[in-house]
């Protein structure tokens, strides 16, 4: 026990990134059940390691533990020191992200073991699970890498790996629609990635020491700082499916639902906003204009998307569109943070966790619906709650979480953003009030959808008694509980995330 207690957060970082990657490698060669177990084991290991790392960090949340791994000499040029680019580190912000990524990743792996089965009505899957888990675990590894990245460069590397994984996973079913969707997602996010590259190039050129460190922007000249920020912002837009790049996300709903849950609600799209959060957290002197750009575009996204989802019939697409708008929330939190409101910034960060749990839960619930019914069209479903009560609970808890009904997590984050916006006053206050309005609309719509789908007389027969689908049920229940308690974990953490001013 003493030995375990003496392990520092730092010692855990490398195994933490490595564990899912090893699991991924193993899964490539496994078939059916075996891959279920291996994936679950490695997801658990990752979770435990992450818990250890985060737990260790809790003793001093202001600390940053770094593990420098390597310098990149090939871009060092003739006369300058090689920049440090391979570096794992963990701090409060990273811990928040790590928490979301590993916990939901673990649940998704568990959930998938049942979802990808011949019993799935919508997409019966007999084999090919090894490939699935390999990509999924690779993705978990990449997301862990993003959370633990110690600088922009490292973040970018894992960022692009997630892009790749997303492409493979969206195309998992390999029908025409999913192939196209996967390709579209890949291209759009890769375009964003290139902007990231340009931003890195600019940082490199204009900074002699530590060009890729998170505080790099603060050391740039003001004009250049804004330019780099905008480049990073474009990258984040593409990744987080913001206007004008949001169109890939609804299409990406061709993916298996656990994938939609993990990639398109909890993890990958969060990478985009995480990047901006990083920038805002570490940079000094961001101009008003970049905050304005971030805020206005996020606001535009939110309202476009709200309008779109009012006329959607496909449950998953609704969730996808809603995800887009919630990423907008987080970006607005960051924008307000750039304007100087620590409260709103913390709210945005909290929303990463809150929305991850809430939307993840929604996706998993919808996944169970399709698993049992084979359809996800609202107009074809009714009375699902009678047949699948747990799913109904999951859906409603998720919906209330993302729309901000207290005491669920979404309330706290939205509340903080709102408070921050009103604190700043002026245009920020207008944004905040518009957010509140959006929240109301979304709430009404989700409630309507929930009632339409879960209430009334059942539209399908009861599933056979044998089909208990405990892995899925367990995942849904755990996430539902998380929706309530995640705030308890996240609130102490976000207080220790600095806001560069």
């Amino acid at each position, binding site marked *: 026990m003493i030995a375990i207690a003496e392990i520092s957060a730092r010692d855990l970082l490398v195994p933490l990134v490595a564990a899912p990657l090893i699991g991924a490698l193993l899964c490539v060669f496994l078939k059916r059940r075996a891959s279920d177990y291996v994936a679950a084991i490695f997801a658990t290991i990752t979770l435990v390691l992450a818990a250890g790392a985060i737990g260790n960090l809790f003793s001093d949340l202001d600390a940053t533990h770094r593990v420098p791994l390597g310098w990149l000499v090939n871009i060092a040029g003739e006369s300058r020191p090689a920049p440090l680019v391979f570096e794992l580190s963990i701090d409060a912000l990273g811990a928040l992200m790590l928490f979301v990524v590993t916990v939901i990743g673990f649940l998704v792996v568990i959930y998938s073991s049942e979802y990808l089965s011949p019993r799935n009505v919508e997409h019966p899957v007999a084999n090919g699970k090894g490939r699935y888990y390999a990509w999924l675990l690779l993705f978990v590894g990449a997301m862990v890498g993003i959370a633990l990245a110690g600088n922009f460069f490292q973040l970018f590397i894992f960022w692009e790996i997630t892009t790749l994984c997303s492409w493979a996973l969206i195309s998992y079913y390999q029908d025409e629609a999913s192939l196209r969707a996967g390709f579209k997602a890949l291209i759009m996010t890769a375009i964003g990635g290139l902007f990231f590259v340009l931003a890195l190039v600019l940082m490199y050129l204009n900074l002699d020491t530590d060009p890729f460190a998170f505080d790099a922007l603060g050391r740039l000249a003001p004009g250049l700082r804004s330019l780099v920020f905008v480049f990073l912002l474009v990258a984040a837009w593409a990744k987080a499916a913001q206007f004008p790049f949001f169109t890939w996300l609804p299409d990406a709903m061709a993916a298996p639902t656990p994938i939609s849950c993990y990639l398109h609600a909890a993890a990958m799209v969060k990478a985009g906003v995480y990047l901006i959060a990083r920038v805002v957290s570490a940079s000094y002197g961001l101009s008003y204009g970049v905050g304005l750009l971030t805020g206005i575009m996020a606001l535009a996204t939110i309202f476009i998307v709200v*309008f779109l989802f009012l006329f959607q019939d496909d449950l998953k697409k609704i969730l996808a569109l809603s995800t887009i708008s919630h990423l907008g929330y987080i970006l607005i939190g960051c924008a307000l943070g750039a304007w100087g409101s620590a409260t709103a910034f913390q709210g945005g960060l909290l929303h990463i966790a809150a929305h991850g749990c809430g939307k993840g839960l929604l996706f998993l619930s919808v996944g169970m619906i399709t698993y049992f019914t084979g359809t996800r069209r609202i107009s074809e479903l009714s*009375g699902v709650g009678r047949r699948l009560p747990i799913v109904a609970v999951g859906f409603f808890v998720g919906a209330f979480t993302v729309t901000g*009904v207290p005491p669920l997590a979404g*309330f706290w984050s939205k*509340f903080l953003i709102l408070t921050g916006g009103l604190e700043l006053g002026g245009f920020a206050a207008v944004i905040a009030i518009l957010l509140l309005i959006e929240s109301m609309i979304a709430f009404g719509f989700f409630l309507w959808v929930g009632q339409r789908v879960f209430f009334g007389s059942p539209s399908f027969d009861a599933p056979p008694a044998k089909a208990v689908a405990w892995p899925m049920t367990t995942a849904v229940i755990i996430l539902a509980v998380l929706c309530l308690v995640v705030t308890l974990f996240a609130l102490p953490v976000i207080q220790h995330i600095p806001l560069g001013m």
Partner: protein
Amino acid sequence: MAVIDLLIGALILLVVGAAVTALLAKRRAMCGYVAFLFVAVASVWVGVAAFHVLSTGSPIAGAPVLTIAPLNSSLVFTVDGLSAVFLLITSLIAVCTTLFSVRYMLVDERYSLVRYYPILLLFFASVISVVSVRNMLFFLVFWEFMTLASYVLVVFETDNADARRAGLQYFIATHIATGGILLATILLYTNAPVKSFEFEALLESTRALMATSPALIHLILALFVIGFATKAGILPFGFWLPNAHPVAPSPFSAVLSGCMVKIGVYGVLVVFTSLTPLSHFTTVWGVWIAVLGTVSIFVASLTALQQTDSKRLLAFSTIGQMGYIWLALGVGLALLRISPAVAVVALMAGLFHLVNHACFKSLLFLNAGAALYRTGTRDMDKAGGLMRIMPVTAVTAIIAALAISGIPGLNGFASKWLIFESGIVGGFEIPLLVFLVVVAIFISAVTLAYYMKFLGMVFVGKLHIGQEVERREVPVSMLVPQVLMAIPCVAFGVLPMLALKYLYVAANGILPAGYSPAFASLFGSSPLAVNLSLSGLRSGAWGPVAILVAFVGCLVLGYLISRMGAAQTREVPMWLCGEEHDFSEVRYPVHSFLLTFNRYFAKLYPPIPVPRLPRPTAILKLLDIDRWLYYPGLRWGERIIRVISATHAGFPQLYVLWMIVGAALAVIVLFSMGGGP
């Protein structure tokens, strides 16, 4: 153990109870009794704590339970006089309704009880919490959780389309209202000198803002008032209420009307006593509140008169009665600076009516529930004369109905009387109030009218029920709550001073020091009669004991007179002017009752049109970026590619030409750009 620990203990008990009942949900009866047990113990604890506060007059507070550092807020449970009043009615209603539920909820086995008892217990916990915090953030949290829990219970019968629609309407309306409250709260918070959501800090914020931006204060107060009015069912914001209350399971309808809507009143009181310093804003908004209350009184009661569904009638009645409470509060707030004595009486009158309404409206819903339990219908046309088979239910219903209509001797009269008195006297200062009171008195008669209708159609009269109905009284576990709730209706009616004494503590606690005259100078010193002295002189009197003694005397006199002739009685058939009809043919339909009068007011409460959004194809197309930007862009790309690929024709000669041209170009380009290092 500190008294506040009783409250916290009760909350824990309720949460634990929720978990336990969730596990027991399959065993319906057992689940109900266990829930009752938990609620009963918790209610007693809460009641003891609340009563302690009311009797000592000093608030009690606990230690911080939870701290949200980014928002400088801690969760501290505090009970002051005002909270205590709400806690007491909550406890009473909780015990009664839960006991009532036990048998009531056994019937319909389509719905799992896991959505009933656990949620109900959590609901009570949230209600208790919401009135026991003095921090706006946690207030909002518990407030909205209360809404959430109540929503689940409103839509309990998920197969019922009305219930679904009502639930949707309810939750959306109140959520939006809460959004307003939230906004107002945050606006105050952001301007607070000390950033905190504690009431005290927000009060300082309001004080500061009053000097600098009165418009903003008006906005904030408007948001608060509208928000709480929505919850309290005050028209036009409480439009959801008549839809939502009837469709919930009857015991929960009782909770909704008896308990939850009251929390809206609590909110308004908190806003104007704890969040706003006494100023002309209080006066202005007091008048507005009174006006809103009167509008509700007028519209809802006249609409109630038109109803044929018993529970819907009761729901409209709730709005009307909430209107009375708001009127009283409005009068009180409006006059607080001008004539504190009248104001205190008005506030107490409001609180008194609130307590009374909690008793008799819950009771009425339980009565209606009992009738529904037996007959299976809420349509007053389909069942009548239940007094013959359900005497206890009927008697309690009559007591409640008479109480709510303000028949002297019952509690409703006492509180309404106080409202009218204070309103009329207040009218000396603000004439508008008198007109409001006149409306209120007029509607008091309307209230009486529709309760006559309710009683007459459901309980009194010829027994008229379907064949399948079991002809006996409801089980004892459903009778006990009804009787329990009838007791305060009578007790407070006969001895209003009993209640007023404690309400004075409550009202005194929330007012600024020096604003409340001594109890005896307001209400006289006799415990049996209320002798009001509002403007220094004695301005009104209500001695229920003396008058009831006289009334009983007169009754005896009348009885003696009527027995003078020692008349015999004889059973005869109904006389229909000599014609033979089956009763069902000649039964007078509910709809026709008061039809002429109702025609005058038929348009008062129009059905709310549900907007059907047309699919805005044009805008959707515009927002489909793929369609007009990306895909056309790709097509352009294809076109470019085709042009370029056409140049690769495949002749070596052509390619050689390219080379030569290329070389020439290279030379030209290089030289034109100039050399030189």
